[in-house]
């Protein structure tokens, strides 16, 4: 009796691990193309071996915590000299059209296909509220 429960739980654990790894592979894949085919500052940096404020895997998992933490620190404590900011994300990851105009980071088409934020967020169906107020293109 107890043996079969154990077997079942092992089976479940294997299945669960498989599902999680599949999900991870799929989300990782969804955000891949912007880098190779884009012309943003981040793409250029990636080609020369440069790195974001954290390594890519870390950013993919934890960027939302970083951004949320920074927003509270900035608004309530006035600290603006932070290593990450939403403005920084947009400035670095926005691609340019041939005409020289920036493509919004939430656009579904442009150089390299769907743009930086859209490429993962649309795929995973996670709505993105930042840009109801914040700018989707660099404002230099």
């Amino acid at each position: 009796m107890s043996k079969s429960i154990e077997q079942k739980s092992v089976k479940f654990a294997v299945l669960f691990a498989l599902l999680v790894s599949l999900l991870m592979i799929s989300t990782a894949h969804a955000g891949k193309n912007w880098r190779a085919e884009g012309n943003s500052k981040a793409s250029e940096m990636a080609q020369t071996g440069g790195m974001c404020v954290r390594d890519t895997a870390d950013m993919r998992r934890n960027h939302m915590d970083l951004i949320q933490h920074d927003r509270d620190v900035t608004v309530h404590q006035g600290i603006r000299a932070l290593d990450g900011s939403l403005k920084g994300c947009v400035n670095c990851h926005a691609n340019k059209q041939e005409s020289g105009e920036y493509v919004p980071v939430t656009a579904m088409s442009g150089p390299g296909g769907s743009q930086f934020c859209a490429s993962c967020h649309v795929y995973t169906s996670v709505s993105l509220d930042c840009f109801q107020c914040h700018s989707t293109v660099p404002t230099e």
Partner: protein
Amino acid sequence: MKTTDQTDHKRRDFLKTGVAASAVTLAPGIVMHTAEAAPRDKAVDSSVRWGMLIDSSKCASGCDSCVQACNDENGLEAYSMPEGADPEKWDQQRPKWIRSVTLKDNLSGRISNLPLMCQHCENPPCADVCPTGASFRRADGVVMVDRHICIGCRYCMMACPYKARSFIHENVDIKPELAPRGKGCVESCNFCVHRLDDGQTTTACQDACPENAIIFGDLNDPNSEVSKALAEYPSVQIRADLRLNTGVRYSGI
């Protein structure tokens, strides 16, 4: 029909170049540098309390330089009237951080003009009533709205005795970098907090005033221009009876 009033970028660029020239030549060989502006890296604390003294006797009737400068700085005009809206109603509900107010003394008939904005109270009623904590007073005395947690209930607008707050009723055309905003949040004057956090010590309205009627600075520093002016000239708080200890004071009313 859609009317668009967008930020005048040429004017903004002009202002930017004006700010960029921070080194002033006083005489050959003597150059005065203003403090090096750098983004803030430490949390604000209560050793500073930002405040303002407005000399309303210098406010010429019809002058709206400060209002215009505020609108430009904070992108308050990047905002279109929706199709079919009533223009009069629309105009009444536009976001305004500074209101140009005319007062008349019924006894003497004396008329005074003054800009009225958020008074940055020490005990702000807006923060008192806010159900989410979005309306708050920063340690350095700036009363502001955290739009990330504002739910748009507008209780603060009811609570403010100065009618200083505005609600964003419609989607905005341009999302300004300095004051990101979207439909459904309340906002008000924040003493150009983006400038303060960048190490600057002036506000847009102060810079724009042709009569130098607005003095801005640290109320806690006895040597600041605003503290010296407050010590020298008689000044009042508007609705002093409410005991809010406002950060904005007026003289010449």
